[in-house]
């Protein structure tokens, strides 16, 4: 398996030029920022309100934009060209994920600033957000691989958004029905719990378990995405 920076950056650059001419997708980038500014103005200073905005950034930018980028390559028959080139699966995956990852970093940082969120331990939060961003981009890749067009991806994103943003609303339910306890291992809830604990003074050691759970999600989602990619690209 090769790893050529020239190929990866070529795909990134291509995606950047392509996306900057795609109004439909670029307007999506401003939604979370708008909400963050609104929340910041309203002075809603609870951890869960910050994370409603952050999660929205993850879903709309990392997952939705990524799924649209992948779905469009399939819809327009351009992914095949990448696949038939000497670029390895790894290079194509990295190249195709980089733009959404960078956009997510910008949007999430922006919305943290706009909503005046000041975590007590920035380092731990930064690691957690970074891992989460990688997870949500992987989720977007997977959705992009399963859908046939940008339109379809835009429909599929709605239930995904409900699942991954309504997280904190589920907590009372979990307390009532212990079976739902597995839901607590969802990456968004792990992130929220971690953020809560950071505010009570937790450091890296105390939050390691949460980080590991999110890391496990990162590995699983990318392994599944790579498997689906290889399967779908042959015998279609």
């Amino acid at each position, binding site marked *: 398996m*090769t790893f*050529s920076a*020239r*190929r990866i*950056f*070529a*795909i990134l*650059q*291509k995606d950047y*030029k*392509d996306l900057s*001419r*795609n109004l439909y997708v670029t307007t999506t980038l401003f939604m979370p920022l708008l909400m963050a500014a609104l929340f910041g103005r309203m002075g809603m200073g609870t951890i869960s309100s910050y994370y409603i905005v952050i999660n929205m950034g993850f879903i709309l930018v990392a997952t939705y934009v990524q799924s649209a980028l992948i779905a469009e390559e399939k819809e*327009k*028959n*351009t992914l*095949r*060209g*990448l696949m*038939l*080139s*000497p*670029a*390895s699966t790894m290079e194509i995956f990295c190249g195709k994920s980089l733009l959404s990852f960078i956009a997510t970093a910008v949007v999430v940082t922006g919305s943290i600033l706009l909503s005046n969120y000041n975590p007590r331990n920035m380092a731990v939060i930064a690691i957690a957000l970074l891992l989460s961003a990688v997870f949500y981009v992987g989720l977007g890749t997977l959705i992009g691989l399963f859908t046939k067009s940008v339109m379809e991806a835009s429909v599929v994103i709605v239930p995904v958004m409900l699942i991954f943003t309504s997280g904190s609303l589920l907590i009372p339910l979990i307390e009532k029905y212990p079976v739902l306890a597995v839901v607590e291992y969802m990456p968004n809830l792990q992130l929220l719990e971690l953020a809560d604990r950071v505010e009570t003074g937790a450091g890296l050691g105390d939050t390691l378990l949460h980080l590991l759970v999110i890391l496990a999600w990162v590995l699983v989602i990318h392994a599944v995405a790579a498997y689906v990619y290889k399967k779908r*690209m*042959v*015998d*279609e």
Partner: protein
Amino acid sequence: MENIIEVTSLQKAFGASRALKDVTFNVKRGEIFGFLGPSGSGKTTTIKILTAQLKPTAGSAYAFGVSTEQLKSEKYRQKVGIVTDNTALYGRLNVYDNLKLYCDLYGVPYQRIGEVLRMVNLAGEERKAVSKLSKGMLQRITLARAFLHEPELLFLDEPTSALDPVNTKHIHDGLLHLKEKGTTIFLTTHDMNEAEALCDRVAFLNNGEIRLLDSPKKLRQQRGEPTLTVELADGSMVIVPKGPEGADQMFRYMSTGQLVSVQSNHPTLGDIFVEVTGRKLA
């Protein structure tokens, strides 16, 4: 001569329908091999198997001496160029940016972009947005993209179907030039004139089976009737045997000044195709 592609008893089924029934052929290094057949005969399916986009149901396909199922490696991809209708261009980017991406993927210097555009008669169109190109221009840019890395083996799936005669001629010259430089070309087409103009050998595919395989010239000569068609001054056409039995007749036409033209009766590739398969090409 060395075989660059070796296909033996290749079969491909999609559910109950059998797209390829039993296909066997070799492609020699340096030749232009024509894969001719009507719509739905299995031409694209064969290209997809040879480029590891489809798994064969049975039989074997080798390229460069390696089973095509194992040909997803960087080394093989670097040697192969593919033009099919499932390898599109990026519509929002201009011509230059589309080709530049492929220069990066294949490790080719950007100066090649100008060279390949000249090969497809589109020099100077670098800055045009791909979404604004005509169908024939798109097809030529897709061809140019496949020429970028000077592949050893080029798969072309109906490369001139959207082109006018002038540009078709230009592309044909380009392909012959590539052949001269050592590129092996696997070409599918409906166009019998294209096959005659370019191909060293052609295979006739019908319903997933190869019915004939030889050089266009041999195919026509083998099937040539031993007769001549003679055009006379009064406008009538007469069939005359080529052997001694026709000599008197010809002498008469010539000595009385009736003879206008003589043509040897070789069938065209299209005629042979209809004869062998009972089907017309699209």
